[in-house]
């Protein structure tokens, strides 16, 4: 874009990266920073006050409706970005790459499993769901599976008992299921219960975020698996799983480079939205969304909008800048 090539804006990528690094550092180090006010401690003499730089209790960015220092809350709010949104994005990209990559590579017919593998899976399901018989039945199934594994090269009718695992159909079904309602509505519905712990919220965010990278990896994998180097690897007799993991998957994950920052921005937006609505988290967890939610009671609190809104906006814009190719 020629607009971006002007020298005035040439430093933008550097600024964006710098801001993101600062947010990450602050988020990680927030509990050890020398802050004038401890996190979550209300200063009841100064409730909902604009920034005061002259008088004695120096709230650099003012106080919120509970009398907490906005600067402290802001710095601790960065923790949510680093400890919740970032891991959720990484896990979602990983899960999406594995799911979309295998669905695209093997399709519905490619992954043919022998009888023994099906029996092992059945045994695992039996044991996990505690179906009648429990451990004994699962053990019996495992025994039969071992027998089948032993017999497969020796008895032709056992060796021929191979059924395809419809990976692609399973993948499409999962994606359709998760796409049936807008992401925000799904998260609201699933987080409507008692406040979630960080781990559960992380799982929830990963569960709603993985289809996006998975779809991209699947589309790219459909292209990659027909390329000459994959054919060559097959012809050279490499095991299929190795071709998939070492040769095809790295290429199929290429589009993720540009989209991972964007999906991180999306998840930060989702997390702050949840905090803004007061759903799913205990109210004492500091978050930018929670700071912004106080604007509903006090619409003229410009210092809240400027600090929390500004930090959120800068982070999202920086992530967008990062996603655009540098040329």
């Amino acid at each position, binding site marked *: 874009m020629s607009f971006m090539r002007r020298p005035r804006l040439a430093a933008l990528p550097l600024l964006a990266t710098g801001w993101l690094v600062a947010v990450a550092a602050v988020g990680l180090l927030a509990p050890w920073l020398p802050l004038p006010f401890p996190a979550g401690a209300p200063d009841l003499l100064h409730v909902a006050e604009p920034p005061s730089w002259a008088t004695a209790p120096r709230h650099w960015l003012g106080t919120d409706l509970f009398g907490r220092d906005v600067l402290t809350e802001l710095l601790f709010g960065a923790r949510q970005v680093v400890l919740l949104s970032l891991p959720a994005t990484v896990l979602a990209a990983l899960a999406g790459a594995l799911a979309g990559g295998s669905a695209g590579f093997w399709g519905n017919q490619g992954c043919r499993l022998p009888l023994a593998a099906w029996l092992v899976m059945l045994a695992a399901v039996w044991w996990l769901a505690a179906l009648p018989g429990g451990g004994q039945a699962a053990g019996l199934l495992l025994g039969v599976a071992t027998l089948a594994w032993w017999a497969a090269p020796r008895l032709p009718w056992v060796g021929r008992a191979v059924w395809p695992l419809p990976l692609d159909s399973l993948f499409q079904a999962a994606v359709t299921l998760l796409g049936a309602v807008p992401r925000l509505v799904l998260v609201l*519905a699933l987080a409507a219960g*008692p406040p979630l712990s960080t781990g559960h919220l992380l799982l929830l965010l990963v569960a709603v975020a993985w289809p996006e990278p998975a779809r991209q990896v699947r589309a790219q994998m459909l292209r990659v698996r027909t390329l000459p180097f994959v054919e060559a690897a097959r012809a050279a007799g490499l095991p299929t799983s190795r071709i998939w993991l070492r040769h095809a998957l790295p290429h199929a994950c290429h589009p993720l480079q540009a989209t991972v920052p964007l999906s991180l*921005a999306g998840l930060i937006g989702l997390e702050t939205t949840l905090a803004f609505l007061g*759903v799913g988290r205990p109210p004492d967890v500091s978050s930018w969304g929670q700071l912004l939610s106080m604007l509903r009671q006090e*619409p003229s609190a410009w210092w809240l909008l400027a600090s929390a809104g500004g930090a*959120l906006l800068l982070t999202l814009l920086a992530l967008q800048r990062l996603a655009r190719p540098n040329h």
Partner: protein
Amino acid sequence: MRRWLLIQLGRAGLAAWATASLVFILSRVLAAGAEEAMLGESNDLRVRTGATSPVARQALRQRLGLDEPVFYVTRTSRASATWRWHGPHNQYHHWLTRLLHGQLGWSFRDGQPIGPQLRKALVYTLPLAGLAAAAATLAALALGLALAGGPLATPTGWRAALQLVLTSLQGIPVFVLALGLLFLFANPDALNLLPAYSLADDPENLPFGTYLLQLIMPVLTLVLAVLPELALPLAAALRHELRADYATTARAKGVPAPTLLRRHALPNALLPLLTSFASLLPSLLAGTVLVESIFSLPGMGRLLAEAAASHDYPVVVAGVLVAAGVRLLGLALSDALYALADPRIRLAS
């Protein structure tokens, strides 16, 4: 074509049912916690009236319909881990049969039936979402044409700036947009132009002008939220069409640039826009959740947000059903428009 649409709709409908069932069962499994929370909240208000006694708890469970098993089969406990068959006397079966009779159940919070509540909320939400959809489409057309209208393949000058603004707008959460607009246009300290909050509960008793004035900011927020995903692909498609051979031929014939853009390129570039229509309605619905909460409109989105914040599961499940229905509607609508716009599809069916 018709068959393809039916398959698509059937699949989406199945997914809607599965999602609603999943949310229902999960919520009922977790509802034990919600019931504790409700008892706790009522305890805060009334000073220890014995609401935590087992009898009161049992009565509450019975009133909320939580005393029956959740599903046809349930696992008794983790230690002994045996499955029990309950037959049709379970919460899921009752919910499903009631749903098939058109009944959505009763709210946990106030015990009111959900159907009338939803209907009252939709009176607010439908005009809001409809206006936003129409305005967003028109704005996307105008902006797309403006963005692609430049002499060069890559935009320069104000077009590049506009493109940058639209791209930046893409990732900004709806609630930040709404708060920003609220702060700019309904603030006694800045510009006090528009009313921020709805004053009356009843839209019919309100003067029409006031009602429209109140809708401006919510609609503007929704339009800004969905505009980039409509306008940017349209501009890209238009630019793609302008590079095609027929566009070169038209230019060589001496067709003026605006006519080329509007008459020749636009009809071909419209098809991707129609595809994004399928996702427009769901994202508008997700937007109303925030917009109605912030601008205090008692609509569907606010109902859902408040239900989620107060563990009112039956309302949440009803909201999920409505959202899934909206998505089905979006799919069907986008498909109908597609057939209307593209004669090849019409002739094929």
